[in-house]
């Protein structure tokens, strides 16, 4: 398979402004994340709020400035480029946002939002761009008449379809979808997820699919990276991960997936407490304070990501 993106040791730190009496704090939103992306695949990024999955997605598209690390797109490091160079690379990578309403300019019609990048990157003339916008709207299952309407005139599901049409306008190679269905009703979620799947089959897009809902990710992804406090804690193909989860965090997440069988025994593993603050992560293993299989070493030594038959995991249980 063709590798189109490679992310090496990506770090994104935010500096929190110190108050009068406290020093500046550093929030490590993404801390040393590496992965590759192959053409036509879907990489799922899962984790709780605050795990750094959205930040990872935004940073690889350079919507956020990486603090450290390489982002190789087709062999070219895009982590430091700026200005015109960055702008021209952006048309190959698009993002679909979580809140489809807020991410559309309320003062522009749907059509204007869709054709703007085509015009601005001089891809097409006005007439052709409009033509393409009509096609795109139909492609995502909307009426082409919607071109002339404003975002507030649509329902949530329709808006997300618009968001998808907008992202497709540039015919990108990589699409980062940041929790694209979590704001939608379950019935609408299924439609949108199917739309994602259809579009990928038709056009061979590469997706980075960010979600906190494992069942959504399971349906779409080829490979899945589980994130916790800015780190990848487990990384494998979908089949392996679901059949044989290794990391206690992943096991707990899996147990939380509802099973559509009322007689199934509830073996849910409930984690205590919340995800710790990324300003002040636990020393040693970051999951140690919530882990149900904690050992003494976990408090002290930060585990490395080790690979067992292509299945990567960051846990002392497997480091030997």
């Amino acid at each position: 398979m063709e590798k189109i993106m490679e992310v090496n040791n990506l770090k994104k730190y935010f500096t929190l402004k110190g108050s009068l009496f406290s020093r500046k704090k550093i929030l490590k939103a993404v801390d040393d994340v590496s992965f590759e992306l192959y053409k036509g695949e879907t990489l799922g990024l899962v984790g709780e709020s605050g795990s750094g999955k959205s930040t990872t997605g935004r940073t690889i598209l350079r919507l956020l400035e990486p603090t450290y690390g390489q982002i190789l797109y087709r062999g070219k490091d895009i982590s430091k480029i700026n200005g015109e160079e960055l702008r021209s690379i952006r048309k190959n990578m698009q993002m679909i946002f979580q809140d489809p309403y807020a991410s559309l300019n309320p003062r522009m019609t749907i059509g204007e939002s869709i054709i703007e990048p085509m015009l601005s990157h001089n891809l097409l003339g006005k007439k052709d761009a409009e033509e393409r916008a009509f096609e795109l709207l139909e492609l995502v299952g909307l009426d082409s008449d919607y071109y002339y309407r404003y975002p507030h005139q649509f329902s949530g599901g329709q808006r997300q379809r618009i968001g998808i049409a907008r992202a497709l306008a540039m015919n990108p190679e990589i699409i980062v979808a940041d929790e694209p269905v979590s704001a939608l009703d379950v019935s609408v979620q299924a439609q949108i997820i199917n739309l994602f799947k259809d579009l990928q089959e038709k056009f061979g897009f590469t997706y980075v699919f960010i979600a906190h809902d494992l069942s959504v990710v399971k349906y779409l992804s080829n490979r899945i990276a589980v994130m916790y406090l800015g780190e990848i804690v487990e990384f494998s193909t979908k089949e392996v991960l679901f059949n044989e989860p290794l990391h206690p965090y992943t096991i707990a997440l899996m147990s939380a997936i509802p099973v559509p069988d009322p007689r199934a025994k509830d073996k849910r593993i409930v984690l205590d407490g919340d995800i710790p603050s990324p300003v002040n992560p636990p020393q040693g293993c970051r999951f140690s304070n919530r882990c149900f299989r904690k050992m003494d070493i976990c408090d002290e030594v930060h585990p490395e990501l080790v690979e067992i038959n292509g299945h990567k995991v960051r846990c002392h249980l497997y480091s030997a």
Partner: protein
Amino acid sequence: MAKYITKRILKGIVTFLITITLTFFIVRLMPADPATLLMDPRMSEAHRQQLLKDFGLDKPLIVQYFSFLRNLLKGDLGISFMQKRPVMDIIMEKLPWTLLLMTITQFITMAVGIPLGIYSGHKRGSLFDQIVNAVAIFGISIFVPWLGFTLLYIFGYNLAILPIGGAHTPGIDGGLEYFLDVGKHLILPVITLMSIYLANYVLYTRGSVIDVLSEDYIRTARSKGMKEMRVLWKHASKNAMIPTVTTAGLMIGRMVGGAVLTETVFAYPGVGRMIYQAVSQQDFPILQGAFIILALSVIIMNIITDILCAYLDPRIKLE
């Protein structure tokens, strides 16, 4: 759209009626009897009664009120107690000067204030932004007569390069010379007024640009690969303009009221100075007239602003 405008205009008319009623009674609450002020103390009581009768002040208040309404419909704002001339004529003499002063001030402040606000909001927290903010706050807090007198002292008296008052030099009329003369008289009042208005535009625009720039659709625009300038002007500024348009509408509406303090300091023959003089002379037909014109203009500008905002923001429903 037509329905929205009609509704808006009807509301405007009701507002106007309430305003003129309030104006009528408030002005008459002034603790003085104009006849006594007008009269030479040596004149007889009969004379005084005659005078009150001439101005219709002998009738009950409610009768006065209805005759005031009747006259208003005819465009008659009454007769000035002091100048013994129709109030309408007096206001029409002053209004062009005030409009000249205010239009120029508004135009310059908008042209300077809006871009400054946008840029400042864009570069939030930068040195530039901090300086702009500090200057704006200083401008808005400064005491106008103090600023006026200081400018007069420096440019009118010490350097003697600018006139110390009035709107034009008597004797010069017509031609380029007159034009330049009027311009020279405008410089100091305009600068003084700008100190107040500029901050309004800068701070409103800056605030709403900051709000808008944190919106998700701005992130979308960036992710689409738009140039930063386009993001700022096309996506952010247009959305940020609504509060600024509202402010501008209100300020333009108030323009006909002139600037009482500034016009008085610079002896500028506008509506503001007229109001100041009318207050000190208890000339309430003039006050009443000025307030009515002011109210009318504010109400009309409000209607225009509302229509403009509805046009600017498709989310404001035209119903």
